[in-house]
């Protein structure tokens, strides 16, 4: 590794950050355990806090994916919510298939919504989803293919900057409209709910919830290391170069299209995985997840935390969502002001995000 020469020696701050991160991960890992303590125990953590944290972990994975594309390769996608949602839909289809004859109409194969919309057969694109590995594969594959197609067309025609943002936004918008249609066979506006089990475990059991929590946490840590490995490799430097001076990279003989495509597809697949972990935990997936506002919000988590820092992205996802949860409860009428104000303040005053604030003006 060239790290010794290429990057400055880790500063005290960087070490501190690393230690803090490890501490946080350990604390997170403790949460389901504390949840098992009796309710009156001083260290008891309620189901609500555990489940909401599990959700935020999924958001943090999504934020890492966005940071990889935006913070490093400069691809501001306003459609990552679509990849997240597609991953969620893939696992949601699996969960729907697992309900089997336990639905209200007792149909052995068809989910309830198909029964009352008058379907007689399972649509072809639903085949195979009774298998968990297949569903998980699709949760990665479908977002990957979509990102591949959209990315290939866009990067080949050298669509960059805001144009790329607008196109990805239109992509998620079109998907949202399409998924809202009941005739698409994805449950329309209601999407999928009322899941029963996953991998043989009932979804509302504490043990399942803890398992999902740990799976998400492990994925978050794994994703972080994957992203860190990529960004520290030479590819990471190519991506930064692409972000800052795309055409110069071309004259060095690198295929910008390939580099971007690689990172965009990977980022989409990570987002799909995050969605797949998210859906069993929140118990619902519907086309609202495709709404363009969701994708923008996810980008803003990254901006708040500090783009191009990975840790910052995760930090942003946690802190913005924590703030949102807190504010929607204490100030239901005013929280949008606070959130909107935060976005304005961060972009205007903290271009490097919270992490940049910690690091001070280093460069």
């Amino acid at each position, binding site marked *: 590794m060239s790290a010794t020469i290429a990057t400055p020696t880790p500063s005290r701050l960087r070490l501190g950050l690393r230690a*803090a*991160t490890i*501490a*946080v991960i350990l*604390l*997170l890992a403790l*949460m389901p355990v504390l949840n098992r303590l009796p309710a009156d125990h001083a260290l008891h*953590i*309620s*189901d*609500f*806090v555990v*489940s*909401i*944290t599990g*959700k*935020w972990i999924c958001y943090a994975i999504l934020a890492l994916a966005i940071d990889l594309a935006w913070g490093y390769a400069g691809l501001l996608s306003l459609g990552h919510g679509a990849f997240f949602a597609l991953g969620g839909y893939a696992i949601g289809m699996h969960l729907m298939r697992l309900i089997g004859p336990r639905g*209200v*109409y*007792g*149909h052995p194969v068809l989910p309830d*919504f198909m*029964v*009352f*919309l*008058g379907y007689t057969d399972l649509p072809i694109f639903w085949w195979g989803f009774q298998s968990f590995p297949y569903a998980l594969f699709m949760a990665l594959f479908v977002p990957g293919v979509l990102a591949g197609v959209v990315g290939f067309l866009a990067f080949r025609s050298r669509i960059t900057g805001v144009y790329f943002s607008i196109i990805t936004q239109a992509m998620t918008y079109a998907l949202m*409209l399409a998924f*809202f*249609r*009941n005739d698409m066979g994805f449950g*329309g*506006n*209601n*999407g999928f*709910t*009322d*899941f029963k089990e996953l991998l043989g475990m009932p979804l*509302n059991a504490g043990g399942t919830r803890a398992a999902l929590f740990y799976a998400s946490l492990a994925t978050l840590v794994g994703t972080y290391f994957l992203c860190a490995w990529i960004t520290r490799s030479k590819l990471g430097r190519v991506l930064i170069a692409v972000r800052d001076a795309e055409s110069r990279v071309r004259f060095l003989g690198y295929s910008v299209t390939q580099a971007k495509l690689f990172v965009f597809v990977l980022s989409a697949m990570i987002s799909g995985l995050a969605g797949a972990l998210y859906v069993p935990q*929140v*118990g*619902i997936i*519907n086309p*609202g*997840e495709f709404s363009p506002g969701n994708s923008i919000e996810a980008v803003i988590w990254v901006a708040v935390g500090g783009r191009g820092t990975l840790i910052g992205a995760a*930090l942003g996802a*946690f*802190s913005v969502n*924590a*703030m949102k*949860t*807190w504010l*929607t*409860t*204490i*100030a*239901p*009428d005013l*929280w*949008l002001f606070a959130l909107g104000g935060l976005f304005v303040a961060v972009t205007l005053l903290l271009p490097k995000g919270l992490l940049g604030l910690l690091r001070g003006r280093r460069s």
Partner: protein
Amino acid sequence: MTKPLVPFSRRALMAGLGGALAMPAIRPAFGQAAPIKVGVLHSLSGTMAISETALRDTVLMMVEWINGRGGLLGRRVEAAVVDPASNWPLFAEKARELLQVAKVDVTFGCWTSVSRKSVLPVFEELNGLLFYPVQYEGEEQSRSIFYTGAAPNQQAIPAVEYLMGKDGGEAKRIALLGTDYVYPRTTNRILRGYLNSKGITDADIMEEYTPFGHSDWQGIVSRVKTFAAQGKKTAIVSTINGDANVPFYRELGNQGIKAEDIPCVAFSVGEEELAGIDARPLVGHLAAWNYFMSVQAPANTEFKNTWQAYIKNPRRVTNDPMEATLVGFKMWAQAVAQANSTAVDAVREAMYGQKVDAPCGYSLEMHRNHHLAKPVMIGEIQADGQFSIVSRTPTTIVAENWSPFIPENANRRRG
């Protein structure tokens, strides 16, 4: 870094909830007992805020009302308001928060079916109690939910019956227009079954769906005109969702579709929706509900006066879901008093058979199927945005939440 993960201490949360409360000016003295908590789970932002904020206000009004009468079981009633922001997964999260963190005794909330479907598993898992005040597609019955809005047989079928009768114009062709979500889809499926059973063939039924908030109705309204030009009396049955109605009715009016020629009966258009439209071109079009603001009944007069005083606006209207919220609240209060407890299981048991003299002018009873028996009223739109009631059932109708017109209900699992 740990801070955000446990985002609020309980004390901060309670302080917040207190701030969100609408405190009555003069608080009657209450005992030392902890207050009874009422969760309010209605969207205050996002697309559904248009409809749901009025319901939040209705619950707050009822809380004030009951505290003014000395509270419940000698305890003060306190509202915990949250904003699920028209975001369905957020509904589930907020439901869990209300039940587990705020520890509410009962929750009033939800408007759309998807939000109800989203919170249903949470309420069932944590044995909570939800009062759902909006007419819906049926095909559901949860022990944790009391449905105080109409099931399809309490709204849709009587309305179509009216259209096909002499007073309604003896319609022989029906255009089913709806927003593309589960309520219109299911309702129209039930209606199609019903119409077929009345001898109206599929050739005489047009069915079309539009997305939420659809604003360009030109094409669909002209297609309805064409559909109507086949030499048979035609009527429109609209399950168009609230927001899209304004442009829809505008287009109807502008394209000169008069109620005399093609009457349109709607299931989601009430006084609140009409407040946003110039109703003059719409006179004679219809809506079917279980309550209209124009009902002449002492309970309704009281409701309207209390509401307009509470909201400090003498022109604010009342509507069906607000009435359903009020009925649900009163019933819950009666059940709590009867059970002498707020424990969910006891209250649930006490709810069955509970009766309330409702603003709709009838005494409504909660049945063991968790639905109210309700009267059905057909109203014609008046120039002032109110409804003139042109037909009403003589008695209340028991809800058929499992429609006999959906064949699969025959082999539905009981329980």
